[in-house]
């Protein structure tokens, strides 16, 4: 009795923090158990990668997942704005592997490269050209008049927001979190 009570309390706590409902948290917890082979944390398969950590616990798992919640009918305009900012922040941090607050050209190139990596042999030149074009676009939209000597350091978060304004992230970046448990994919700890 005591154990389940603390668990519901814990879930309630998490629910307040992340905005999930209790059933959804329950569901995600089950999934987490499966992914982590019933341990407390999920271990990183590639621990040496830049910007990754060794292992994550359930709370961190939930925090990441909460970025993918959709807006509901009752979300007000300000809440939608805040949600959009939060999602864009998430994406920005994904790109900014150097953790310096800007996405440099090198980092952006890496993003494009990864995006095209599964499509067979892509020439390095094309990747570079595309990343350069994208960077150029960001620079010209945000800082229209730069003298030839100036150097555009990298995409800051404000510029990032500006350039992706049209996509309306809060309506695109979400997945459906289920309240009931469905037969799940048996991928477990498989690597891609």
């Amino acid at each position, binding site marked *: 009795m005591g154990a389940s009570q603390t668990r519901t309390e814990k879930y309630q706590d998490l629910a307040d923090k992340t905005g999930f409902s209790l059933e959804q948290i329950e569901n995600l917890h089950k999934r987490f158990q499966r992914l982590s082979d019933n341990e407390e944390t999920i271990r990183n398969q590639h621990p040496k990668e830049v910007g990754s950590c060794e292992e994550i616990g359930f709370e961190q798992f939930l925090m990441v997942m909460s970025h993918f919640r959709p807006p509901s*009918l009752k979300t007000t305009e300000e809440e939608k704005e805040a949600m959009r900012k939060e999602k864009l922040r998430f994406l920005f941090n994904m790109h900014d592997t150097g953790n310096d607050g800007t996405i440099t050209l090198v980092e952006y190139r890496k993003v494009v490269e990864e995006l095209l990596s599964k499509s067979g042999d892509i020439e390095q030149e094309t990747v570079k050209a595309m990343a350069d074009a994208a960077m150029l676009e960001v620079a010209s*939209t945000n800082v229209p008049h730069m003298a*030839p000597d100036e150097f555009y350091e990298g995409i800051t978060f404000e510029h990032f927001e500006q350039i992706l304004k049209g996509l309306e992230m809060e309506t*695109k970046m979400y997945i459906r979190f289920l309240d009931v448990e469905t037969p799940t994919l048996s991928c477990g700890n498989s690597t891609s």
Partner: protein
Amino acid sequence: MAELRLARRSSSLPLTGLMGVVLLVFVFVASASRDVVSENNKTWRDPAGETRGDSHHQTNSTAHKKAFPVLSFNYEHVKKPFEISLWILLALLMKLGFHIIPGVQNIVPESCLLIGVGLLVGGIIKAIGGEAPVLDTKLFFLYLLPPIILDAGYFLPIRPFTENMGTILVFAVVGTLWNTFFIGGMIFAVCRLEGGQLAGVDPLSCLLFGTIVSAVDPVAVLAVFEEIHINELLHILVFGESLLNDAVTVVLYHLFEEFTHEGTVTVVDAVLGVVCFFVVSLGGILVGAIYGVLGAFTSRFTSHTRVIEPLFVFLYSYMAYLSAEVFHLSGIMSLIACGVVMRPYVEANVSHKSYTTIKYFLKMWSSVSETLIFIFLGVSTVAGPHAWNWTFVIVTVVLCLVSRVLGVIGLTYIINKFRIVKLTKKDQFIVAYGGLRGAIAFSLGFLLTNSKMKNMFLTAIITVIFFTVIVQGMTIRPLVELLAVKKKKESKRSINEEIHTQFLDHLLTGIEDICGHYGHHHWKDKLNRFNKAYVKKWLIAGERSTEPQLISFYNKMEMKQAMMLVESGSAAKLPTIVSSVSMQNIQPRGPARHRAIPSISKSREQEIRKILRANLQKTRQRLRSYSRHDLMIDPFEDNVSEVRFRRQRVEMERRMSHYLTVPANRQETPPVRKVCFESEHKVYTYDDSKSPLGRTAEPDPSPPDAVSLLNESSQRANQSSEHRAKRNDELRAKVPDEKEEQDQLKLSRCLSDPGPNKEEDLS
């Protein structure tokens, strides 16, 4: 000045336009009534011909010898094509007129104006007493409707369509069913209550009537929504619904028509009806998909006969439509499926010109069809036999509105439970208000065989159509403004958005995998993989079959920009360059980067050293003769022209690289050249800390102090190699950017000018 001229022109233009139109109308009407006249002509000419023939037979020289007709009149010969062309010409001139006359466009949608013109023409014809052409069902369904549907299907925005597929299907199927039964049932009740003329109406006829009048019409929706530029979601909801409800309409129509002949309905029939629905819709889609695949496959081999490529697209699609109609499947869905399946592969295969041709021909045909449909609608209204019954008509109109509103509200309530991005009240209102009826309803009504009720039904149908198109069509624009509904996003897709859309796709698929359920993205990903692995290989010619979508998007964008550059002429006339940011602003420059210098091969290093030495020694000799104080003056004067030339080139290349981001010339980094001296004694060391010679000089020297020195020294070194520099500049401008970025920049840092050309000489 031009505006003034235009204003003057436009004021006199309506007048001339009007006169021209009236003239044309009379010519046309005269031709329509020529049926009567031509008959006389024929009978008249024949006896004359006979006598002529007789006289010839008799003798060579006859008493009454008829003169050889220099100019004769034979209208019968070309009557049909002539009239068709005249009709189409009239329709297009009307369309032209509406766009020239200022101000009309904003108040009245084009469809209303066209109906008005049709009424006018019909009235004139009737007044003269001629036979007005009616909107023949065969003409409508076989010739006028397909171009519009093909245009809609080929350019259907796939992403929003598939994302909202569930909602669209619910509206199309359940909504239409609801409308049909509600209207049919209520009409029947009203007829029973009313009695009198209406008493004879049986329930099945009412249901049939309900079917015809409840279907939202794609032509009308397109015509009206085109002009109000509403946001993508609402547009695709209403439009998608109007396309997909064709299956329901077809099934119900045939079902009820059969039943009216039979007289009785059994449960088996009802079940068969449901089965029929699935057969009709899925069969239609299958037929369309098959033809689509065939079309895509054919386009793979057309690289040598580019001229006929568009024809394949049109013909395969038309065949899909006709084949579906043969089996009484849904022709519209077949056409849509064909266009959707064919498009990505055809676009990858055909030439740019063919693509443009396809686009413009489709737009042209659909425009003409739409115009003709509305005009004919007006003409047929005047012509057709009418049986006006106040109660019936008014009740029909009211019921249509009420049932639409109720249906949308009820369905949205259910749908919102499943949708993530819910439909707000504003959205619901627009969806309900946008349910326009149009010519399909009219044609289906025309097909009715039960002549007793036919006229009454037709009148009611026409009234509903007029009401929705005119009243709702006219008021929807101010309502959209009033309710501040979101408009369509005007800006073009940027490459950043494209990158991130793709990125999101992958990201969300991954997250869905983590959460462990088969969601929307999972299936989309599977479909894409299947497409890439198998389908593309078969249907796309050559190398483009392996090109990922991002790259084709990028190439398309580059081509557009290049064409824009070419069209705008020389660099001097380039349109407002919004920003002066160019490649050099992004490319990180020397000091900002701390990159490891890769090793060059020994032999190369030797050669570089040799050249450097040769170059430097010359300059060193020169340099000795200068004193520090003279430095400032001479180099500038000597080099002014060169500097100017270089600056111009930088300007030009910056502009070009703004548009063509394929790195034109990475060389442009150094206006400040990183050539520096350590001391005069060290010959080789044109060094900063990053030279390939491996000798680190001062570690990151005090750059600010050294800058002026650097500038001067670069100018100095310029002198000697000035001659060479000019030649190399020209050469360099043509050098393609194949070398390693590192080498170039390094060398350009160390040698004032001759950058990669050194390597060219060496290699």
